[in-house]
């Protein structure tokens, strides 16, 4: 107890250009019981800005300090509830609104299926909020500049000693009087805590021009480099074995065959499905006599014929088959299909024109399937009948 007057002389502040001020006093005790007794004495002395320091939690100190339990639980609860709401909303929006995915016909918004992810996010948010709240908000950490860290008693205070710290901002604080008071409470040692007014670390290192320039340089370099990589590098897959397959594509040379062609033609005489050869090439009149439209007029046939007519015929022959198509300003005018000649042609004769072309009209055999050609003819017949209706239609 004799060495409680352990006030170290203030260092010569002016010499190294820094200023130190006393920010508090620290008393060190040798057992939890001594600390508790001292604590009651300090409270009775009228000081209000002080706290204890201990290497491990001492139970019962909250009671002596008149502190209620931590309110950290509310932080965790709010974070957990918020996470629950966010998780449910996000799953609903992604699965049922933004990109509805039909998975085996199960409902787009499925409450039970969304429970696991919601629960995990609740735990995650609550935990992160608890830790961040405890460290940064409730405890005010980090405190790398705390004067306690510079105390020579700090090692013992994290091992087997207990302390009381009085803040110099306490109205009752006086370096000498408070030291005497703490010394009188059974302290092993009393120390005045000092702290530099302005942190030299911030002033000389963090705020120095070279360091700030370095930060700016890193920022400019990394954003430029990222931009360059995306602009000129594109997306580079690490490995693309699946894309590179040992096969011959169309028009490529093949070493397997003597003629060196990669593209092979079929066995002579084979016919692809739906591609029976046209038997009346160069003889449209015979086609007109022998070919018969295999379709009967029906709603489906008319609808299909109308659609295909609209795609392939309408640009030249016009919507009403009157030769006033949208392309007639750029191309030679196509004839009307309401002429007596066209009306009197058989379906097979028209089929021959669609298949082989006529005058300036090209062959459509490669673009319109045979079935569609017959259905277009049905639609054409309907249009012809609408413009040149026979007497009986009008009765």
């Amino acid at each position: 107890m004799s060495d409680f007057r352990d006030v170290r002389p203030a260092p010569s502040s002016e010499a190294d250009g820094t200023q130190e001020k006393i920010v508090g006093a620290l008393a060190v005790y040798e057992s939890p019981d001594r600390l508790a007794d001292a604590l009651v004495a300090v409270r009775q002395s009228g000081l209000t800005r002080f706290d204890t320091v201990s290497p491990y939690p001492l139970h019962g100190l909250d009671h002596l300090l008149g502190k209620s339990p931590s309110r950290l639980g509310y932080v965790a609860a709010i974070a957990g509830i918020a996470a629950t709401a966010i998780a449910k909303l996000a799953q609903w929006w992604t699965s049922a609104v933004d990109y509805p995915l039909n998975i085996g016909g199960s409902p787009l918004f499925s409450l039970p299926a969304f429970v696991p992810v919601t629960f995990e996010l609740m735990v995650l948010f609550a935990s992160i909020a608890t830790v961040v709240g405890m460290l940064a908000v409730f405890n005010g950490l980090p405190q790398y500049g705390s004067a306690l860290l510079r105390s020579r008693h700090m090692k013992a205070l994290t091992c087997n000693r207990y302390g009381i710290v009085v803040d110099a901002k306490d109205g009752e604080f006086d370096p000498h009087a408070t030291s005497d008071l703490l010394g009188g409470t059974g302290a092993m040692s009393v120390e005045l805590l000092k702290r530099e007014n302005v942190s030299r670390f911030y002033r000389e290192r963090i705020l120095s021009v070279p360091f700030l320039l370095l930060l700016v340089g890193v920022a400019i370099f990394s954003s430029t480099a990222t931009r360059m990589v995306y602009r000129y590098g594109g997306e580079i897959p690490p490995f693309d074995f699946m894309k590179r397959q040992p096969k011959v594509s169309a028009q490529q040379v093949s070493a397997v065959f003597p003629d060196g062609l990669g593209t092979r033609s079929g066995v002579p005489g084979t016919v692809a499905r739906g591609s029976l050869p046209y038997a009346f090439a160069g003889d449209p009149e015979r086609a007109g006599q022998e070919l018969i439209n295999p379709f009967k007029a029906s709603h489906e046939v008319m609808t299909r014929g109308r659609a295909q007519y609209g795609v392939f015929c309408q640009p030249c022959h016009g919507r009403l088959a009157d030769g006033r198509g949208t392309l007639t300003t750029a191309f030679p005018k196509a004839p009307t299909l309401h002429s007596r000649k066209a009306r009197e042609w058989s379906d097979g004769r028209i089929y021959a024109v669609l298949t082989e072309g006529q005058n300036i009209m090209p062959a459509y055999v490669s673009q319109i399937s045979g079935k569609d050609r017959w259905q277009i003819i049905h639609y054409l017949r309907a249009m012809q009948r609408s413009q040149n209706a026979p007497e009986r239609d009008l009765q």
Partner: protein
Amino acid sequence: MKQVPSAPGHDVAFDQELLAQIDDDIAAPMRVPPGKLWWAAIAFTSSLMLLGFALMGYTAYRGIGVWGNNSPVFWAFPIVNFVFWIGIGHAGTLISAILFLFRQPWRNAIARFAEAMTIFAVMTAGLFPLIHMGRPWLAHWVFPVPNDMSLWVNFRSPLVWDVFAISTYFTVSLLFWYVGLIPDLAAMRERAVTKVHRVVYSLLSWGWTGLNRHWRHYERAYLILAGVSTPLVVSVHTIVSFDFATSVIPGWHTTILPPYFVAGAVFSGFAMVMTVLIILRRLFRIEHLITIRHLEYMNKVILATGLMVGYAYLVEMFTAWYSAEEPERFMLLNRLTGPYAWAFAVMFTCNVIVPQVHWFKKARTSLPIMFVVSILVNVGMWFERFVIIVTSLHRDFLPASWGLYAPTLVDFGILAGSFGMFFTLVLIFVRALPVISMTEVKATIPGSQMTRRRHSPSELPDVEDGIHV
């Protein structure tokens, strides 16, 4: 060396030097340079780890065709290893969170190490789904981040639940572990011997000084984390079991899978903690902190969870018989007598029969016996996952598509690499951070708290919050 009781029950007079002694003993591995044994051990484990990484790189380069996985066994070693390692992690959370809530002070001596093991095991486990993707550079597609296909993940898929469960589990375990470490890091900061130590421990301890204000919120934070970790740990292996249970494969499609997986996870995790602690306490001479009594308690947990696992095996058999479902009955017969019957035999012997020795106190307190049992349990638990995954897949409904599975050397290499990675991390941990929580051990020593209750001077002005020194 002084005998330091690490839990209440021993009536020993409070001694200040005891506290310093505890700190010295726990901090010793960080203050002295490692010996030849440590270097030899880490050389071996890190070689295995590098072998595993090289083979993972080879897999990413050539494709997963280099493994034994093929129709009909598309899930094999990687998923077996994934479930195995996730399970190992569960003991850590059980010890740190659930036993904390049950106020079991004996956990204090082993909690830190078990938590570290959780983190390393989850890190190891996480590699397997990653490499199983075949194209791990597209791993971000499993998260609901906007991507070039403007497509979201399917939140109805257990595989997506898995992503959330594992990543949450890792994050929360890390936070829990780190929060527990902060006061110890502050103590290490004060005991630092080199400048590097001082800077690193200072930065990591956030300027912790141990004010009562700090402790008040810290203890509440620890309680909340324990509270949320408890359902979390149950949910994680439940969700892992959903990967199987929500499918229609006989042997997977059962409702007992979630509790069975959780019990099995705790079982294997405790065995792994046991294996490592038995070596560690001898090497670092902390037998007085991690006593035979601690190990005996852990053996009781191993026995209890082993019985649960055995019960699950029997219920599975009973249900298969009782269901009168032809595929279920065939699955059971195929497990017992099919081409992988040997795997079932290994599993059943190691998981159900071997732990029965722990009914005897002699076995529970004998280091050699418990060491062998702990290793056998983990062998058995690895085979349990093999049995569940491979024997269920290789013969399902359609006999025309039956097949056999054989792992390749790459499979074995990656398995060995996972053990290498886990033990490398453990070896680094025991040299870099306090293996036992100094704070918790000191706080529960007899006499380390106030011995009598005092009257609070309530009529006095309130003590202000938040002193700033």
